[in-house]
């Protein structure tokens, strides 16, 4: 009787042992499988959401222009980001979007006024469904978070991207260098004639066969008269027709250009007739050839940015030195499609005018928010 009891107890103990072993083994197996499958899926979700945040932050930063409408445009661009998660099957919505004036913050949503806000932060959280780990961790989903920061980073040099023209200013303070948005500035100067009545540094407007563009201040005119005279017109590209085409249409530069460079060695008389043809051709590629002010052009949903021309801003300090003080973006004038504005108005004596839009942000359909150089490019900083 006692032996049977002892054997029975031993069997019971063994059954408990098997139960414990099975439980531990099952937990271990689920743990291993969970590590491979659930954690693997979480890694992919992290990578996918990171890609979403990166691309969204870039598109948002490209739209910033220092105004409240730029903030709205950035938020819209981020909302329109198409990258998905969960193996590319699910869209992401409601990302947390904030803005800052520096990459370290502080971050605020929808700043107004928005001057100086050049960085955008995008964060998103997604719930990844767990299949095996719930047995161990007791939850059926795990939140995966990703974030990215992109901003308009000042550029001080270009090896490509600038048109072969220059705007003149004696004001060296960026980002606008004394230029006024909406004013018309000379990018290729009219023919100089020092024999005209009243021509002098004090009356520079009398030194040209046609008046320069309406926005050029007297200081700029004086600097041009004193230091360029009949020799230069603000054009710094090749005189070859083919090179002019590539310079205007493809913004291939004759040479790299940096802040502080002396543009003087690159200045040439230019070839106005050839230039006019390509300026008109470039302007005609824009899907908006009717608006000639920055406010109306930038508000147009049909624009494509082809009429925006990035050029260096220079200060002719003496006959041998024309210093690059910054960069800016100018709106080519147009008179319909196809436009022949420069061909019509660009005879040998006339200036080529363009309207100042603001700082140049590479790849944007509008001006940038601005920095000390007047030029920027969107980069991911986090």
């Amino acid at each position, binding site marked *: 009787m006692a032996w049977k009891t002892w054997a029975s107890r031993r069997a019971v103990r063994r059954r408990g042992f098997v139960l414990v072993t099975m439980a531990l083994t099952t937990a271990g197996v689920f743990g291993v499988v969970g590590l491979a*499958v659930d954690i693997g899926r979480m890694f992919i979700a992290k*990578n996918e959401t990171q890609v979403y945040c990166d691309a969204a932050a870039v598109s948002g930063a490209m739209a910033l222009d220092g105004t409240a409408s730029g903030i709205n445009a950035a938020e819209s661009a981020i909302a329109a980001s198409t990258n998905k998660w969960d193996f590319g099957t699910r869209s992401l919505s409601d990302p947390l979007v904030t803005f800052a004036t520096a990459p370290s913050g502080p971050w605020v949503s929808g700043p107004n006024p928005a001057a100086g806000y050049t960085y955008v932060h995008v964060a998103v959280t997604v719930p990844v469904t767990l299949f095996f780990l719930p047995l161990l961790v007791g939850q059926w989903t795990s939140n995966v978070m990703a974030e990215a920061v992109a901003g308009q980073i000042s550029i001080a040099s270009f090896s490509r*991207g600038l048109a072969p023209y220059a705007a003149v200013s004696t004001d060296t303070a960026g980002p606008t260098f004394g230029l006024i948005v909406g004013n018309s500035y000379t990018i290729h100067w009219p023919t100089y004639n020092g024999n005209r009545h009243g021509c002098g540094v004090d009356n520079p407007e009398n030194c040209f066969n046609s008046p320069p563009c309406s926005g050029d201040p007297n200081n700029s005119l004086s600097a041009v008269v004193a230091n360029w005279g009949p020799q230069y017109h603000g054009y710094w590209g090749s005189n070859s027709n083919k090179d002019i085409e590539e310079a205007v249409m493809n913004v291939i530069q004759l040479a790299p250009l940096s802040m502080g460079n002396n543009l003087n060695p690159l200045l040439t008389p230019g070839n106005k007739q050839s230039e006019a043809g390509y300026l008109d051709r470039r302007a005609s590629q824009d899907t908006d050839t009717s608006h000639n002010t920055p406010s109306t052009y930038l508000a147009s949903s049909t624009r*494509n*940015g082809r009429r925006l021309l990035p050029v260096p801003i220079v200060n002719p300090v003496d006959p041998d030195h024309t210093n690059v003080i910054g960069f800016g973006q100018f709106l080519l004038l147009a008179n319909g499609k196809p436009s022949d504005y420069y061909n019509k108005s660009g005879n040998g004596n006339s200036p080529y005018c363009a309207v100042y839009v603001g700082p140049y942000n590479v790849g944007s359909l509008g001006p940038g928010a601005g920095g000390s150089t007047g030029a920027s490019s969107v980069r991911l900083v986090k």
Partner: protein
Amino acid sequence: MRRWIINLCTGIPLSADRLRVPRRRLRAQRKGNALVEFAVGSGVLLAAFAGTFELGYTLNQYNRLLTAVAQGARYASLIPYDSPTNTPSAGFQTAVQNVVLYGAPAAGATAVLSDITASNVRLTVTFSNGVPSSVTVSITGYTVNALFGNHLLTDKPQVTYPYQGVWAPV
């Protein structure tokens, strides 16, 4: 000397030799049980671990492709686009495909995954109002060869970036 054991239940004395037989049988039966349990258990475990490897390997390959595709899309969004239409030039396309496959615009020796070629990297340039506005890079027609199964990837993973380079249509 013969050993006797009293059966406590019945009070009948039993020889120890008589007890040894059922124990041997019991052990033999247990050995059989263990063999069956081991066969069943190891089969289940093997299937579980094989499935785990299969899924883990596929997920790992997918993650590597996603990283490569994101890198290619970012690169494509920055370099000058030298085509007047949404059909990229051969030079542009090759450079982007090389970034996806080798991590650099020039072709390298070892691709990100075995058997993947440039034909598996699809590049789509989207135009808005006549100018390039975004670039999309994806993997298509590539099969991840896992242990027991193949997984065909069609336009996955896929990454889109806004185009922010210089357009050179001439």
